[in-house]
C-alpha cells in the first residue's frame, strides 16, 4: 500500500517538491559563492590592502606609490573574484543542468525497475 501511496505522490506533489528542492540547492550554491557580492565588488581592492589615500599635499612620489599599490590591489581583487565567479558559474551551470535533467527524468524513475527487467530478459551484459 505504501508503494501505491508513494507512486501517486511521485506524479502529483512529488515532482513539484523535487523542483523546489533543486531550486533551493541552486540558491544555496549561489549564496555560497556570493555571486551578487562578487559582481558588485569585482573591481574593488582585495582586502583593502592599500586603502590609504595620499593627501593633496603629498609628494608626487607618494601619490604614485599609493596609486600603484591600489592598482595592484584592484588587480588581485579582480582576478581572485573573477576566478571565484568562473568557478561558481561553472558549478551553478553544472548544478542547473543536472537539476534540469533530474527534473525531466523524474517521471521515468519509477520505470527503472521495469527497464532492469527488460535488460535482464534481453540478456544484455557488460
Amino acid at each position, binding site marked *: 500500500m505504501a508503494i501505491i501511496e508513494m507512486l501517486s505522490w511521485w506524479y502529483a506533489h512529488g515532482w513539484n517538491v523535487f523542483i523546489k528542492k533543486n531550486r533551493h540547492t541552486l540558491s544555496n550554491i549561489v549564496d555560497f559563492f556570493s555571486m551578487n*557580492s562578487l559582481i558588485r*565588488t569585482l573591481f574593488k581592492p582585495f582586502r*583593502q590592502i592599500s586603502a590609504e589615500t595620499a593627501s593633496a599635499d603629498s609628494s608626487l612620489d607618494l601619490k604614485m606609490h599609493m596609486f600603484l599599490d591600489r592598482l595592484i590591489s584592484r588587480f588581485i581583487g579582480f582576478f581572485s573574484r573573477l576566478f*571565484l565567479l568562473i568557478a561558481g558559474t561553472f558549478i551553478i551551470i553544472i548544478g542547473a543542468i543536472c537539476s534540469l535533467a533530474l527534473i525531466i527524468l523524474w517521471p521515468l524513475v519509477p520505470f527503472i525497475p521495469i527497464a532492469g527487467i527488460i535488460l535482464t530478459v534481453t540478456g544484455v551484459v557488460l
Partner: protein
Amino acid sequence: MSSTFNSHNPRVKKAHQKHTLNTPIIIVLNFIIFITLLGGGITLLFFKYPLGWTLIGFSVIPLMMVFWIKSDLSEIPVKPSDDFTDLLSESLLLLLNENTTPAELVKILAKTPGGMFIMVRFGLTIPVFEQLTNYLPASVEPIYNTAKAIREKTNSTEITGATLTVATIENLPSFEQLLNQFKLNISDLYQGIDWFNYLNGLAKDSKKPIHSGGIARDLAFGYTPTLQHFAINLSDRYTGASHKVQQAENAEIIQKMIHTFTHGGRQNVALVGAYGSGRSTIVKNFAETLMDADSKIPNNLKFRQLYSLDAPSLISAAKDQGELEYLMIRIMNEIYSAKNIILCLDNAHLFFEEGPGSIDITNLLVPILEAGNIRMILIMDDQRFLEISAKNPALANSLNKIVVNPSNQEETIKILMDQVPYFEHQKNVVYTYRALTEAYRLSEQYIHDIEMPGKAKLLLESAAAHSENGLVTAESVQTAVEKTYGVKVKVADSDQDREKLLNLEQLIHERMIDQEEAVSAMANALRRAAAGVKNQSRPIGTFLFLGPTGVGKTELAKTLSEVYFKGESNIIRLDMNEFVSASDVSRLIRDGASDALSLTAQVMKQPFSVVLLDEIEKAHPSVLTTLLQVLDEGILRDEKNREISFRDCIIIATSNAGANTIRDKITAGAKINDFKDEIVDNLITSGEFKPEFLNRFDEICLFKPLSKEDLIQVLDLIIASTNRTLEPQKITVTLSPEAKQILIEQGYDPKMGARPMRRIVQKTVENIVASAILSGSAEAGSTLTITPSEINIT
C-alpha cells in the same frame, strides 16, 4: 463545519504513515536494501549475469521511498478549512479517534507535547485533570468547538495539545474558580498557547538554511588585527535563528539605526537608556539583521560587522595616555581601511572620563564622530549622557541620540518567554508561567538599579537556584527575592508563621506592658502584610507613638523587631534630635559608600526592618518634608538618585509631644479614645507638626502613663530579664512580695514611666546578686530570694 474527529481524513492516514515509516530504523533499512540491491546487481553484471540489471533497477525503489518519507511525510501541514480534523496537530491526529470520550481526551492530552507544556508550565497536573473529568461535558464536541474558537483568538495555525488542554479547562462549569486556585486566569492560558507556538516556531526555524553571505563576503574588506585583539566580534555569533520576540519599539530603533547608517551625515548612534533596558539586545539584533543575507536592508550596510571595543583590555595594554591614544588611532585606521566595521562602545562613558578603568579620549573621538567616516554605536545610560553633555556639549551635539525605554509588562513577559529556553538549557530546569509573571512583579518592586526587562531576567535566572525538583515556580522566585534582598514576600504559609502572626499581641506582651491600642495596630499591620492584603505601594505600616517618656514607645519598636523581624538588630534607629537643621536632610539620603549609617544606606542593606524615628518632634521641618514621601509611597531617592524602597519596613515615629496633656487627662480618669482627636488638634494648632505630616501616618497611637499596677508587671519583666542574664550561671532570683512592694514604691514616678524602676532594680537586685555570686553564697542551681532587709536604697 463539523467539530468532530474524522478518522477517514487523509491527514490522519498520513500521520499514521509518518509515525510508522519516518523512523530511523525504516530509513536505515531502506538504505541497506538500496546498497544491497545496487551492490548485488553490479556484482552480478561483473560476472556476466544479466539478472544484475533487475537488481539495479529495483534498487531505486528504496531510494524513492526515502525521498517520499522525507518529503511528503516530514510534516503534515494544516489545511485551510474549518474542519476540526484539518486543523489538528500531528500528535493529536495520531492519538484521537471518533469514540474518544472527555475522560480519555484528558489522558491523551497528557501524552501530547502541547498538553504536557500547559500542564507543566501552569502547574495543572494530571491528577488535577483526572479529578475534574466528572465535571466535563458528556461528549467531546463542545471541547472541540472551544478549541476551534481559541485557535482563532490566539491566531494559531493549528489546534495543538495546548489548545485542546485550554479548551478542556474552559469547558469546566466553574473553570474560573479552578484557575483562581492556581492564581491564574484564562488569558494566562492563552498566553501559554502563544508561548508553546513560539517555541514550536523556533524549533522549526532552526532547521531552515542560513544565508550569511558565502565565501566571498569579506573579500572586499580589509584586515583588522589590532581591532580583533581588543574587541569582540558581535556578528560572529549570528546563528540564523530568527528573533520573533522583539519589542515593537526596539524594531523601530533598529530601523532608525539602519536609516542613520545608510544616509549621509554623522555615522553614529548613541543608545541612551537605563541599564537593563535592552540596549545590548538591540545591538545584538542589529548585528544579526546586518548578517542575514535575506534581510531587507540597503547593500551598503549588508554584512557589516559589529565589534564591541573592550575598554579594560585596551586600557591595561597601554602604559600611558600616549600609548592608549596610539592604539586607538591604529584601531580607527584599521576600521576606516576595512570598510565593513561598525564599532560599538559599550559603557561609552568609560572613554570620556578619567578614573579607574576609564580613560578620557574625548579629544580623539569627537573629531572622528563629527567627521562621520567611521560608523559607531555608543551605549550609555541617561545620567552619564547628561553628565557628558554638560561637560562636553560638542560631543553631545555630534551624537545621534536614540532613547531606549524600559519594556512594559506585556513586552517583558514575552521577552522572558524568549529567554527561558536558554536559561532552561543552561541550568537544566523548567520554568512555570507564574515564575515569569512573579519575576516581573517582584523585580519591579524590589530591584531598583536595573530596568525592565533586565531586572526580571536577572531575578528569573537567580530563581533557578531555588527550583523544586527542577521546576522553577513562583515560590522559587519569591525565595530568590527573600534570600537576595532580605525581605518577606511570601504569604505566611507555615504553621509556625501563622501561629506567630495570630498570637502577635501575646508575644509582644511577653516584653511589653499594656498599650493595647499601639500593640494591636502594629500586629494588625503585620498580619495584613503577611496575608498579602497590604497596599504594595506603601510601607507595611506607619505609626506615630505619642506619650510620656518611659511608657514603652521605643520598647514596643524593639519588641516588634525581636518578635517578627528576626532580632533587635533589624531595627534602624535614627535619633531625630541629630537632624535639627535643614542641611541634615543630606545625611538622610547619603550614599552608603560615604555614610553607611544614612537612612537610605541602612534601608538599602536591610529592607525588611523596623525604622524607628525617635523624638520626631525635634527634627527640622525640611527633614519632616523629606520623610513625607517615605510615609506616603514607601520610596526615598538617595543622593545618587536611586529609588530606595521602604515598602517592607514598619516605620515608627515616637514623640513626647502632648505628653503632659495625656498624663493630666489619664490622671483625671479620661479614656485615651475620648481625647485622642483633641491631642492631635493641639499638635497641629501649636505648630509642632503640620497636618500633612500627621495625615501620612496609618495610625497615631497614644501611650498612657504607667499605673502602679502596670509597674508590678514591669518589675516582673525586669526580673525575668535579669534571670535570662543569669541563666548561664544557673542562678535564679525571686522577690518576696514585701520586697516587690518596696521596689514599686521607690520606682514609681508617673512622669518618668518605667525607667526609674529599671534603675532601682539595677541598684538593688543586681547588686545583691553580684555580691552573692562573688562571696560564693549563690551557687549554680540556687535560687536567691530577695527580702526587704536586703534592699538598701540610697
